[in-house]
């Protein structure tokens, strides 16, 4: 199993997580994905990549350095993103019932391991 697939497995095993994507940050293209039906991976990758890119620029402009983790909460759940090295971002789509704390730990660890 590839490092990317291992990372996706770890994240999607967290209860409530509906899918995970590894994407190229600069391109917004999917590198690997493991998603439930009904989630458009291509759109999620493009938009999450754009979001992380803009937040990175905002954090740098504010003198905060690189963002380590991004959580976007909405009515139906959360988008979680962990930027890694080598221009990749690990993104998870979590439902409202998800254990976001555990997902965050798994994502930070996985992002650190597979890059």
């Amino acid at each position, binding site marked *: 199993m590839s490092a990317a697939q291992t990372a996706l497995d770890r994240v999607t095993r967290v209860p409530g997580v509906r899918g995970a994507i590894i994407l190229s940050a600069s391109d917004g293209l999917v590198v690997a994905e493991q998603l439930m039906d009904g989630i458009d991976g291509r759109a999620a990758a*493009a938009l999450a*990549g754009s979001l992380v890119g803009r937040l990175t620029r905002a954090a740098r402009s504010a003198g905060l350095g690189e963002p380590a983790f991004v959580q976007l909460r909405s009515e139906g759940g959360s988008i979680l993103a962990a930027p890694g090295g080598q221009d990749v971002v690990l993104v998870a789509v979590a439902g409202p019932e998800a254990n976001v704390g555990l997902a965050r730990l798994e994502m930070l660890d996985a992002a650190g391991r597979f890059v």
Partner: protein
Amino acid sequence: MRALEPWVIDPLQTFLDESSARLTLLMTSSGQVVAQHGFSRSLDVMTAAALGAGIVASTDELARLMGATRFGALVHHGVRQSCMLSAFGTPRGRWIGLVVFGPETSVGIVQLFFDQMVEQLVTIAPREQAPAPVLAENFEGELNASLKALFGRQ
């Protein structure tokens, strides 16, 4: 943004707003310009349309030689600017989109909203008028009329 056909304006404007594309050209597969955004000189539009149509024709032929179906999109990554060229079917014939974008956006975003624009164009395209073939004797007149409409001058 200028368009020869008004029904193209809304989908194209949405695409421009969402994608942050710098230049966009919609043309027929023969290189006739349908709409443009960002070009300031008619010569640039003519050149880009001719080159874009030629590249799509070449890649179509390459795909045929490889026994493949047509390629979906061609993306050229540059340092300061990148370019995407994609052909798609509409009720008005086969069209080509040429999009130039910078590092302020990404190829994923451009492709995502380009595909949404194509869906909108296919949905709202008027069905009643079939595209007329371009004859050599009409070409120069049609080209000048199109450029006048797109730039307000000849």
